[in-house]
């Protein structure tokens, strides 16, 4: 057990969780208080001692599933019996008609271990029934059969199982199942048709069940992979970065959705931190009057000196963002973050460009949720000049012509983009001018530093006229930069 735990802790550290030695010891002690057969209990004991932030939960859960997968043995045996029963039932019901087709189809599926005897139709039927009745045990049986039949797992391949999952689910066609469940619900409604509200509720309920089923399939696949290759090898393939460390430019759709979810708490935290820093960072000069007033309660002895609150000036921010395809998501996150903490700046103005440039400050005015405004930018901003390929040079000259005189010594300018200019002229004299007038000019580049200056990237040419050029690939880096800005 202790070895297993050490391996587990090592894996957590590899995924980026800061697990200290003390926490490891705590975990070792905690597991002694949990009955060994209680898998859920073990999970919570480990979570309570090892994971200290809710954003790390996903990484923990993945690692836990791999290291403490349900082992074949006692438990599996029981469920195997259940499986047998389930098959028996369906077979006796639909035996005569299906029997003839069975062998022919059975041959064409690879690795059909425990699933023999069930046709795809029967499997689909069983899935439908289990979802209808929310029967967890039956769902697990169906998941196991489905994996047998459809996943086509090949032993020894160093994969994380995502493809197997995809293959299994594609064959089961869960969308069609959902539709059928909804029809069933409609038909079963007491007074004829469901009202809209009821329909919506039913849909959410079934979606939750299907989600549960999907997780059952995932667990099953993972269990088999662990059997095949061992926990540590698998852990390496399924390891996922923490949300803060996901590379924004190469994030998948799921990851982007996750980034959106962490962005809001992140920006709130940042705002709180900055507000505090502003108020408490520096002590103002001694407030003589308040100190004297205070000393009256201690008999005229000034025990506690009072200080004036400092009121440092707030900077004015110009955000100029490239929103062409390659860096669009990065620009969106940055704008979102900057606006979420806009109370820390005296004014925020934002401009987006591809080859033309447009001011989008108006979209953010009076909007409570920056995400809405960011969504509008994509559809409404006028950023195409000729062909919709990034042209930094033209965008900058245009900016200089239309708004250049509004950049003053109180303004900080943030430019977001990969500086891949499609071999247009760089027009870097604009930045030179801006730098002379503005308080600071920063360039945020979402590309890894190694790629800078390769191909059509001309970040070097612009960098000469910036106060700082920062690599900003993940939310963590972005947060750090914005935090220092205010």
């Amino acid at each position, binding site marked *: 057990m202790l070895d297993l735990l050490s391996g587990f802790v090592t894996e957590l550290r590899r995924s980026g969780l*800061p697990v*200290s030695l*003390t*926490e490891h010891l*705590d975990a070792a*002690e*905690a597991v*002694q*208080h*949990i*009955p060994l057969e*209680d898998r*859920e*209990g073990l999970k*919570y*004991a480990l*979570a*309570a*001692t090892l*994971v*200290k*932030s*809710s954003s790390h*939960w996903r990484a923990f859960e993945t690692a836990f599933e791999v290291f403490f997968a349900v082992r074949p043995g006692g438990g599996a045996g029981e469920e195997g019996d259940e499986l047998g029963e389930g098959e028996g039932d369906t077979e006796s019901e639909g035996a005569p008609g299906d029997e003839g087709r069975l062998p022919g189809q059975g041959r064409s599926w690879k690795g059909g271990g425990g699933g023999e005897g069930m046709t795809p139709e029967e499997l689909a039927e069983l899935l439908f029934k289990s979802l209808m009745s929310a029967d967890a045990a039956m769902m697990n049986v169906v998941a196991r059969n489905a994996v047998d039949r459809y996943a086509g797992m090949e032993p020894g391949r160093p994969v994380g199982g995502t493809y197997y999952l995809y293959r299994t689910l594609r064959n089961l066609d869960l969308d069609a199942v959902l539709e059928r469940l909804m029809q069933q619900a409609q038909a079963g409604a007491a007074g004829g048709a469901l*009202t*809209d*509200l009821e*329909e*919506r*509720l039913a*849909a*959410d*309920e079934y979606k*939750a069940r299907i989600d549960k089923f999907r997780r059952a399939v995932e667990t099953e696949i993972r269990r088999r992979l662990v059997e095949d290759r061992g926990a540590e090898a698998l852990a390496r393939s399924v390891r996922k970065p923490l949300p803060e460390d996901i590379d924004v430019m190469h994030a998948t759709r799921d990851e982007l959705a996750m980034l959106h979810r962490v962005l809001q*708490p992140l920006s*709130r*935290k940042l705002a*709180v*931190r900055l507000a*505090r820093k502003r108020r*408490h960072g520096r002590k103002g000069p001694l407030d003589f009057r308040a100190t004297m007033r205070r000393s009256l*309660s*201690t*008999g005229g*002895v000034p*025990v506690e000196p009072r200080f004036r609150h400092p009121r440092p000036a707030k900077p004015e921010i110009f955000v100029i963002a490239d929103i062409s395809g390659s860096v669009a998501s990065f620009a969106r996150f940055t704008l979102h973050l900057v606006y979420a903490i806009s109370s820390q700046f005296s004014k925020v103005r934002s401009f987006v460009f591809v080859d033309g440039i447009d001011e989008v400050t108006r979209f953010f005015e009076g909007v*409570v*949720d920056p995400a809405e405004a960011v969504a509008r930018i994509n559809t409404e901003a006028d950023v195409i000049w000729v062909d919709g390929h990034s042209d930094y040079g033209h965008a900058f000259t245009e900016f200089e012509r239309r708004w250049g005189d509004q950049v003053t010594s109180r303004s900080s300018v943030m430019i977001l983009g990969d500086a891949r200019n499609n071999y247009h002229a760089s027009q870097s004299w604009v930045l030179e001018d801006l730098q002379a007038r503005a308080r600071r000019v920063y360039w945020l580049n979402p590309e890894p530093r190694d790629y800078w200056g390769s191909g059509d990237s001309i970040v070097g040419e612009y960098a000469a006229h910036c106060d700082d050029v920062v690599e900003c690939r993940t939310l963590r880096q972005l947060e750090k930069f914005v935090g220092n800005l205010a």
Partner: protein
Amino acid sequence: MSETTNGRLGLPETGPPRFESLDAVRGGLSKVGYLADESISGVVYLADRLSKPVLVEGPAGTGKTQLAKSVAELTGARLIRLQCYEGLDESKALYEWNYRKQLLRIQAGEHGKGETEGPSWHELEEDIFSEEFLLTRPLLEAIRATEPVVLLVDEVDRVELETEALLLEILSEYQVSIPELGTVRASQLPMVFLTSNNTRELSEALKRRCLYLHIDYPDLEREREIVRAKVPGISEELADQVARIVRSLRTLELRKAPSVSETLDWARTLVLLGVQTIDAAEAKDTLHILLKYQADIERATKELLSASSN
């Protein structure tokens, strides 16, 4: 187990464990009206066995503070609560010397002196830094208590990072060091709960000393049970509907998802209005109890309650 561990670490001896088993925690909590899920009861059980504080995080209104109260009620302990706020300092959280009383004591010494010998400076110093002049604040009070106590440090994320350090000694060693007096050790180990709304990251040092518990919105079954337990006179059917609607609301992207306490308020309102089953019109009229932003209400109405979503 816990006794030997504490001996090794030089902690005060614990009494017998408060809870027999995991099930005892769960059953006990539900008896005092707190429906815990597995992770909650598991962590409370471990906190007792390992003598460690529990850091509870989660969205507002999911019963973080209530958990501490319920545990106090369950174990028959006194609840000592420290409400954190920005600017909280040592003198409000730990202890403070009673300046006024000390000054009075010094002045009294001078007046009583007259022509003869008064107390020497040394005696006076001993005197004014004795326990008589000490004002205990919640943390010290929890340590000095002789009866069982539960210490609740509420919304610990509101204090500044530096102030967190005040808590560290008490959390890991269950003692408070007062320079003039020496170290005050706990005569019994209080159960400690810290709650946080996650407005900022707490320091590693603090997290390391605690067990971590994340309380999220309850799942459908648990929420239904909570509604039924907390709202007298609600029918099973209505409770089910309430829980399901709230779950659907939480899947929408709202600025502020409805919390458990808001769910309960809503359920109570519906019972008061004599509603048997919720239809769209009633839901629309009472939605402002669940959602506190106009934008959220509009969105929920649009998504859930108006024309067909197909």
